[in-house]
């Protein structure tokens, strides 16, 4: 391996590191029942929501933090975090992007998210969350025309409380795990999407958000409900500034698809990964994402490109309840320097003739650790079901690690599960071939890695595919080696 190439590749600085100087309304650190009540009242939530939060909080107090064998981090002091932070708005609501705080707008522009130009031209409705409160929501009117609801959860609680009450917690109950309970207690905001019967959402939906304030955790809650015959493609992407103290991010995403409905959820993630030389700073990303294919012939697919976070713990998965339903998971996870990732997917087959596909590509570089943890469960009732899993690891440099921990549990005799995995490196021969044709080492790496990931990139919605490729290139310029 050309060691000079490795050196160059592994040293690019995180370009999004900076902070916006803005006043924020932050509540004091610590988590007590009082905190929960304070959050709920600040957001002016209906009674049932407060009750739910309190139940979750009390349950959380009894739980133990989830510790997976292969991810190591300093203990998190849950009392040393502020659970609510929002920029002081000049008005209560913003009708258009023009009303967004100019400082904030500058932030978004620095991030390359020119809400105005890019998203508007592409016809993408953007729900940008600045820290814990949604600042701008565009294209609401157009969507409302189609009957599609796309708004912050806080607004949904106000306008459509019955819908939220019916589905929130139905896919990820607060009892599910430690972080889900925490999130249910203190979640600040997130997206709510509702697609009515037989409606195809007219545009791809996306949400950008970033963590700004030091010491403030981020607890998003997203809920997407797709009624019979509906379709929606949702994009989630985020960036974050550079800090010295680790920041906790414990989001929950719930998807519900009824008969013949389809939800496509894509994520391109670019959290700060920690100082490349010391490993300090960086985001702790503990996320619970789950889709319930409730209805017959329903389909939910998760596509993600993960390139950031100091620590990532996330297993987007599907519960396939309806007969003939389909769950898919396509992922590229890149870890470099001191990052640790423990990610994978969980597919639970309950209905007959259900089908799931898992394609996971992990790339490790530097001294990073990349763990794939997948679970495929075919229950007795899931006659005639199929799963295909492929997890491949690419190791770059001799100091990183790639681990694969699949769990395959089958309880009936008419289903089929196929699982394949491989681990390899970029060979000197491959690199030399490119160099010999006049292609730079950097470009060669990029091309090889893109080839490695193409099965996943192919699943990303149009504009995201381009962004993902660029992001990977950026991260790999700074990490491939």
């Amino acid at each position: 391996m050309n060691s000079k190439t490795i050196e160059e590749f592994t040293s690019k600085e995180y370009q999004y590191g900076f902070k916006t100087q803005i006043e924020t309304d932050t509540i004091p650190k610590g988590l007590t029942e009082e905190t929960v009540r304070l959050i709920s009242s600040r957001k002016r939530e209906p009674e049932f929501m407060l009750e739910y939060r309190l139940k979750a909080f009390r349950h959380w107090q009894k739980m133990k933090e989830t510790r997976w064998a292969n991810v190591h981090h300093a203990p998190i002091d849950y009392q040393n975090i502020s659970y609510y932070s929002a920029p002081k708005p000049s008005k209560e609501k913003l009708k258009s992007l023009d009303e967004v705080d100019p400082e904030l707008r500058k932030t978004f522009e620095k991030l390359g998210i020119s809400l105005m130009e890019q998203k508007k031209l592409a016809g993408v409705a953007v729900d940008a969350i600045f820290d814990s409160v949604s600042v701008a929501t565009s294209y609401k009117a157009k969507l409302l025309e189609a009957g599609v609801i796309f708004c912050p959860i806080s607004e949904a609680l106000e306008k459509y409380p019955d819908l939220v009450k019916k589905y929130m917690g139905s896919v990820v109950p607060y009892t599910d795990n430690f972080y889900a309970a925490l999130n249910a207690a203190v979640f600040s905001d997130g997206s709510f999407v509702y697609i009515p019967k037989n409606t195809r959402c007219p545009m791809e939906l996306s949400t950008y958000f970033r963590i700004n304030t030091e010491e403030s955790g981020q607890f998003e809650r997203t809920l997407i409900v797709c009624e019979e015959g509906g379709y929606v493609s949702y994009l989630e992407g985020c960036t974050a500034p550079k800090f010295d103290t680790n920041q906790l991010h414990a989001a929950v995403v719930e998807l519900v698809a009824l008969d013949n409905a389809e939800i496509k959820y894509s994520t391109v993630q670019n959290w700060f990964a920690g100082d490349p030389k010391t490993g300090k700073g960086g985001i702790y990303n503990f996320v619970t994402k789950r889709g319930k294919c409730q209805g017959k012939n329903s389909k939910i697919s998760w596509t993600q490109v993960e390139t950031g976070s100091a620590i990532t713990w996330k297993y987007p998965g599907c519960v396939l309840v309806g007969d003939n339903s389909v769950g898919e998971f396509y992922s590229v996870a890149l870890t470099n320097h001191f990052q640790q990732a423990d990610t994978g997917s969980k597919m639970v087959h309950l209905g007959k003739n259900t089908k799931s596909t898992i394609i996971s590509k992990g790339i490790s570089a530097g001294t990073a650790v990349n763990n794939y943890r997948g679970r495929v469960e075919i229950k007795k009732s899931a006659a005639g079901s199929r799963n295909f899993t492929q997890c491949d690891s690419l190791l770059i440099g001799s100091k990183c690690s790639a681990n694969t921990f699949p769990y395959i549990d089958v309880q009936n005799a008419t289903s089929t599960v196929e699982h394949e995995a491989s681990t390899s490196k970029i060979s000197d021969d491959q690199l030399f071939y490119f160099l010999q044709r006049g292609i730079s080492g950097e470009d060669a790496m990029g091309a090889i890695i893109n080839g490695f990931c193409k099965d996943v990139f192919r699943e990303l919605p149009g504009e995201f595919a381009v962004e993902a490729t660029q992001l990977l290139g950026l991260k790999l310029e700074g990490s491939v080696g």
Partner: protein
Amino acid sequence: MAIGADLKNRIYRESFSKELLKKKTPNADWLAEVRRTAYERFEKLGFPTRELEGWKYINLEPILGASFAASENNGLEFSDTRMIEKYFLSENEQRLVFVNGVYSKNLSSVKNLPPGVILRDLAASLVSHGDLIKRYFGRDASSETNSFSSINTFSFKDGLFLYIPDKVVVDSPINIILLGTGDNDSPSLFYSRILIVTGECSRVRVIVNYAGLPDARYFNNTAAEIHVGEGACLDYFQIERGSKNSYQIATNRFYLGKFSTLETLAFTEGGAITRNEEIIEFGGEKGFASLKGLSLLNDESQVYNHVEANHRVPNCTSRQFYKNVLAGKAKSEFNSLVRVSRGAQKSDSNQLSKTLLLSDTAESHSRPQLKIDTDDVSCVHGATVGQLEKDELFYLRSRGLSKEIARLVLTSGFAEEVIQDLEPAPLKSHLKDWIGEALEIATERKI
């Protein structure tokens, strides 16, 4: 606590007693020290619980809760060869038979060994070759992770010692028969300890049969330490056909020298609960290990296979090929780990496990895992669980075979692929017969 109290008490009273330590061996001291280490290790570990990754699916209650009878004299008078004849391979085999862990000289037959080869029951060997055994015995006692192996270390009374000097080839198969004879009223608990040390460029084939009288109830806890010398070849085949009430826990540690070759087979048919733990340590470069397993389970049989290949040095190759055919309410777990340490460049590993489920009440759990800490390696694994291929069924039917017969042919073919290249021929022939019988019952059809 009720669960395990009986077994633990038994261990206190029966096994780890001063009597045992005072056995008449000139080397009692060093052995007592190893046993004490193992006991302390067990105290620390306790019995495994479901929270441990490697014991997640196994329910140990039937074993821990059973009241085992004192196994001191169980079956010493046993001399009925008809029960064990089916395990005999050939006239020239070297046979050692143990009944409930006790060596039976009458049933055994060791003759015409090449010079320098030591093949004896362990208890006698500790007297005659104590120093030699001391060099290899209990190497990892202080870091043992499997409690049952620790228990074996401080509880065993006898077992096998096999020593092959450099460059010696042993043509005749070493055929060990471990027979359990307890019954429902007094199930027996016994231990067998196996120590095998093979010299440079030597060759030997060892077969260990875990057998039981029909319907016998017993717990066979066997632990083996096997050192394969540089350039040596060793075959280690476990044939487990315990009775339907038997519990079999085997922990085998293989230490491979450079350029050595190891082939293992874990064949399990029947038994109530069987757990095989096979750990391979590559101690030198260019080692090769091929680990195969085949389990045919019906009724309520359960098998838990744990296989670990540790590539700690570069240039070694490991292959794992395990198949299960489950009918009735049977349950299987295949938990495999390939670990490649930092710096173990050019490691080559390939794991493949396939499970065929013949009933909706059978359960399969597969966990093929990889822990890779270095980049210049080729590590591949695959696992499939499912049923027979429709295309293959159609092919056979298009040639006139009925649906039922086609199923049986394909299921046999599925199973037999594991023993395709097996030697010696008599063993392969026995296995084919047993596979045929088991599958006929499982698919309820005769060819």
